[in-house]
């Protein structure tokens, strides 16, 4: 799979505008989500990453442009860990089962539902944590629990809001590897992030957003000083390390000195 999206289209946005209470956050955005896509949406705070995610989710209607969704579209969403009330009285099992909201009326799970939850927890390597309270999990385990809840809905598109925010480097690596595995299994994945370097190493396709789509393509196409300056409004240096572009956060005068040398 290429990850840049050549399969059938799940969501098609054409010249879409979106915003809140009359103020436009996104202008003239063209964006396609294909069945085989694995994309990171990057950009500074306030650039419209979350707004784009809301439009994709269908919780925010575009104010202009055209948008279409495949009839086969089944979206699951994984929220930011920072937005969750970790003191809420639920166990990992109860949390994962939450996403099974249709079909069954009675509060308690059926035997087959128990087996399904157990299977998805096993797939994500946290089956031994089912009876733990959610506060007792590490950052990586919390992310896996939400992935388990999302997967229980059997989606073909997984949307994640800042999945690597607030976790350590090792956990970030694990989470992105896990998402890579899910993508290999045939799931389309779109996530938002601030974390340029982590994405360059793991994601085949990036979209830079700053009120509009500034650039879209492979990490090599997108992570360039010119695109980053247009996206973030600041000069950044891009180096090559093990065949991957690496963004260096340096002062402008240091960049000038290095370039003149």
């Amino acid at each position, binding site marked *: 799979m290429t990850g840049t999206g050549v399969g059938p289209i799940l969501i098609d946005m054409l010249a879409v505008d979106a915003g809140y209470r009359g103020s436009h956050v996104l202008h003239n955005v063209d964006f396609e989500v294909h069945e085989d896509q694995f994309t990171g949406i990057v950009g500074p705070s306030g650039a419209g990453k979350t707004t784009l995610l809301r439009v994709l989710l269908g919780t925010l209607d575009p104010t202009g442009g055209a948008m279409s969704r495949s009839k086969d579209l089944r979206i699951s969403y994984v*929220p930011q860990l920072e*937005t969750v009330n970790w003191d809420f009285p639920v166990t990992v099992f*109860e949390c994962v089962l939450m996403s099974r909201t249709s079909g069954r009326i009675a509060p308690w799970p059926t035997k087959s539902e128990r087996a399904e939850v157990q299977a998805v927890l096993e797939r994500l390597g946290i089956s031994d944590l089912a009876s733990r309270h959610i506060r007792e999990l590490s950052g990586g385990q919390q992310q896996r629990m939400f992935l388990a809840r999302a997967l229980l809905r059997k989606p073909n598109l997984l949307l994640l809001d800042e999945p690597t925010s607030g976790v350590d480097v090792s956990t970030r690596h694990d989470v992105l590897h896990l998402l890579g595995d899910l993508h290999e299994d045939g799931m389309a994945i779109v996530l938002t992030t601030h974390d340029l370097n982590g994405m360059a190493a793991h994601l085949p396709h990036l979209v830079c957003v700053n009120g509009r789509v500034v650039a879209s393509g492979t990490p090599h196409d997108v992570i360039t000083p010119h695109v980053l300056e247009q996206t973030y409004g600041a000069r950044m240096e891009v180096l090559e390390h093990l065949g991957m572009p690496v963004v260096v956060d340096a002062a402008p005068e240091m960049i000038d000195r290095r370039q003149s040398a």
Partner: protein
Amino acid sequence: MMDTILEPLQFAFFQKGLLVATLSGALLGFVGVFIVLRGMSYIGHGLSHAVFGGFAAFQLFAAQLYIIGAGLWGIASALAITQVARRSRVGADAAIGVITTASFALGVALFAKFGTSGPAFDNALFGSILGITPMQIWGLLAVCALTGAFVFLRYRALLFSTFDPDVADVSGVNVGRIEAGLMIVLSLAILATLTVIGVTLVAAMLVIPAVVARMLTDSFGRMLWLSTVIGAVCGLVGMYLSYFAGVPSGTMIVLVGAVVFTVVLAITGGKGLRRSAGLDDHGATEPVRAPVNAL
């Protein structure tokens, strides 16, 4: 000792009061779990005051139907709060402050100007076991049944939308409808328990059993039944004590709740405090939920 305990039971009014107080405590404890976990304690407080406005207004014009009028008033207030908070720049707390206190003030003004043909002013505020009618008991039983049915049939959607409304919204749960349903149930619960607990004290019984239950468990299911039992016990014991102490039933029920809270806090210590401390944490930001979402 036994004779003393059994003494009030010889009075029919006390038997009715005991039944209503126990059921009221259980109902408020049950509903209170969702209210507390959603950070809506202030709504409970505000709605009880709003219901008082309808209570005062309708008993002027149709004394026999004032309960129905107050119920409709409460539901309208609850939906107005939800709509104002969702559709405008006014925050939920400000919307509650304006709508419910204005309603309460209207009730006080109507009572002062025209008096009452229904329950006395003090009784409405602090609760009383005098004059409980069979219709009120049937009404309370009906609200208990309705609330139980609502939670049973919508348990998963309620749990999901209480824990994570944003994700529930995109996972097929009609969060707006669930919230509206919960508001209606809350209004009816306040109305049905108003007679015994009183307007000013209902909010305490929505909060105390749920907070005590949270200190005792990390499981949502267990918290739900524990809070119900704690509420029922507070109602039962409080009603008994109010008879012997000669004070309004609502005040004694709430005081028993406060004692239970203190005892459980002393027993659970830091663990209980840590568990209940998270009741105000409803996420640092709201990243995905649409700002306008019709009920």
